[in-house]
């Protein structure tokens, strides 16, 4: 299974080196924004595992992200357990919640899957919102203390970058493995898969659990970066935004969602500096992208760099 070849490997290393040395040249704010992009990128990538590659309508993904973030915050602020316990517990709890919710959802398809997930997810949101004694309600939990080695802007940046790269490698390996190939097959032709003897539902459930795990990892990173958790992290609007990041970046590609995340976060921050109507700007940009770059930004760029046989391959799998 030859994934890396010299050229792309060199490219990856080069980019990585850039990202590593950037904080020494950038003002602190840009380091912080890059770190937030990394967190969103990981979240979008985890979603795309099941949306783009699995064909599932995961409309309320941020529930798992939020649950993990809350777990971390609650363990650190309410128990005397050490930090690493919180960091590990977050994704595990996200996975458990993911298993529970998605077990129900996998029995349905398409829009019904989405609707059931939104309902169940909203129940979790309502719980976080109303259970003040535990979660601080709509105030949230703020000022979550972090260990020294990741509390400054630069150090949190590096930690998040390391975790992001590690997660990306794992996700890539999963996608290129037989499991990943089967997943894409269940997306394209579930009936044929069943006929060949693949348990489509079980496959999808496993993929969902993996994606919720990584969403949980993103949740942990969020708490490290912002040291706050609040119910907005579980709200359906955020789920929709992540979904849009995947579509925007190109959901049939590997790295598309990361680009989508980068675009949305940058737009939101930098356009927001100049006008309060940045949702209008975002809406217009989305429309332009729909008409001119329908494969998502990444899809467009790939079609420019990829040659025809690859395009035919990609086209065939749609």
């Amino acid at each position, binding site marked *: 299974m030859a994934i890396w070849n010299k050229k792309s490997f060199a490219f990856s290393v080069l980019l990585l080196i850039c990202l590593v040395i950037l904080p020494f040249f950038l003002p602190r704010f840009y380091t912080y924004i890059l770190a937030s992009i990394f967190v969103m990128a990981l979240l979008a990538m985890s979603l795309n595992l099941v949306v783009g590659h699995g064909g599932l309508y995961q409309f309320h993904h941020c529930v798992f992200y939020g649950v993990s973030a809350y777990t971390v915050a609650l363990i650190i602020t309410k128990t005397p357990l050490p930090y690493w316990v919180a960091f590990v517990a977050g994704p595990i709890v996200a996975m458990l919640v993911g298993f529970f919710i998605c077990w129900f959802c996998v029995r349905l398809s398409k829009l*019904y899957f989405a609707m059931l997930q939104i*309902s169940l997810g909203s129940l979790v949101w309502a719980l976080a919102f109303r259970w003040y004694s535990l979660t601080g309600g709509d105030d949230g939990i703020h000022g979550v203390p972090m260990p020294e080695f990741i509390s400054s802007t630069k150090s949190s940046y590096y930690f998040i970058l390391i975790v992001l790269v590690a997660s990306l490698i794992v996700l890539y390996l999963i996608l290129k493995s037989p499991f990943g190939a089967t997943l894409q097959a269940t997306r394209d032709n579930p009936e044929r898969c069943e006929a060949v003897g693949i348990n489509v539902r079980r496959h999808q459930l496993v993929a969902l659990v993996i994606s919720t795990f990584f969403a949980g990892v993103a949740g942990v990173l969020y708490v490290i970066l912002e040291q706050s958790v609040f119910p907005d992290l579980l709200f359906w609007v955020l789920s929709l935004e992540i979904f849009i990041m995947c579509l925007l970046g190109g959901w049939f590609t590997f790295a598309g969602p990361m680009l989508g995340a980068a675009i949305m976060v940058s737009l939101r921050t930098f356009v927001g500096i100049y006008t309060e109507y940045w949702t209008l700007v975002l809406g217009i940009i*989305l429309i332009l992208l729909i008409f001119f770059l329908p494969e998502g930004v990444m899809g467009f760029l790939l079609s420019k760099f990829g040659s025809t046989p690859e395009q035919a391959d990609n086209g065939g799998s749609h």
Partner: protein
Amino acid sequence: MEAGHTVTLAAMGSHFFVGLSRAMILFIVSSGLSFVLGVLRVPNIAHGSLYMIGAFSAFAVSIVAGGGATGFWLALIVAPLVVAAVSFIAERSLFCRLYEREHLMLLLFTFALMLILDDLVKIVWGAEYRSIMAPDFLKGSVTIFKSSFPRYNLFLLIVGPIVAVALWLFTNKSKIGKIARAAAVDREMVGAVGINVSWVFAFAFVLGCFLAGLGGALVAPTVSITLGMDHDIIIEAFLIVTIGGLGNMWGAMVGSLIFGITQSFGVLLWPQFAIVFPYAAVVIVLLLRPTGLLKSVW
């Protein structure tokens, strides 16, 4: 966790009626959403924004017409037309070019439309709270079952079924309604018979949005008209459409009734967690009948 006072028959009766009237608004809005979903097979995320524009337009018309009864009726007629016009422009200029595309692209478009409409409302009407009043003959309340029941809610109880019947007649008896229903089931066949499917879609979309606008105009006298209205209604409408059966108008009615009444009874029985009742109802329905209670159009 307070269950409140003793649950009397009178209380149950009045809650039932209030839930029913709330369900009427939900029905009008979600029937529009369901119709669009049935024919175009796209969940219109901008549906809530159109509802909000309906409410704001009703406000504007009411002010221009000087308030009172004329203002109210005029608003009810003009506001949905305004919304229909807005949706027509959006559809003909941009949306129709996407019909051949991937479904998720249509979804993305409706999302972008929602973002744009939200800010447009802010630009046109500003951020203030707006409020309009019901006309005099609908103000105040009557006493039913020993509790006060606002006259306006009675009005809604009458309007709801009228809209439902009108919609049913229109989609089942009129030519264009039947064509739209056919297109929902098999768009290729409709095209093969020589009908311009694109215009059918335009009609369906505009009708759906008209209903959203009507819902907004009807709800305007009872709530504060603000910028966040769309987010409140859109999730409820989506859930109702899903449990009712996609594209099924009577399904939207059933779903709205379930939603409205469970919410009302939740308030009576367990006020603190009343919000959970409708969501729980949705979860139960979807687990028992995943495709919705009534037959979905596709």
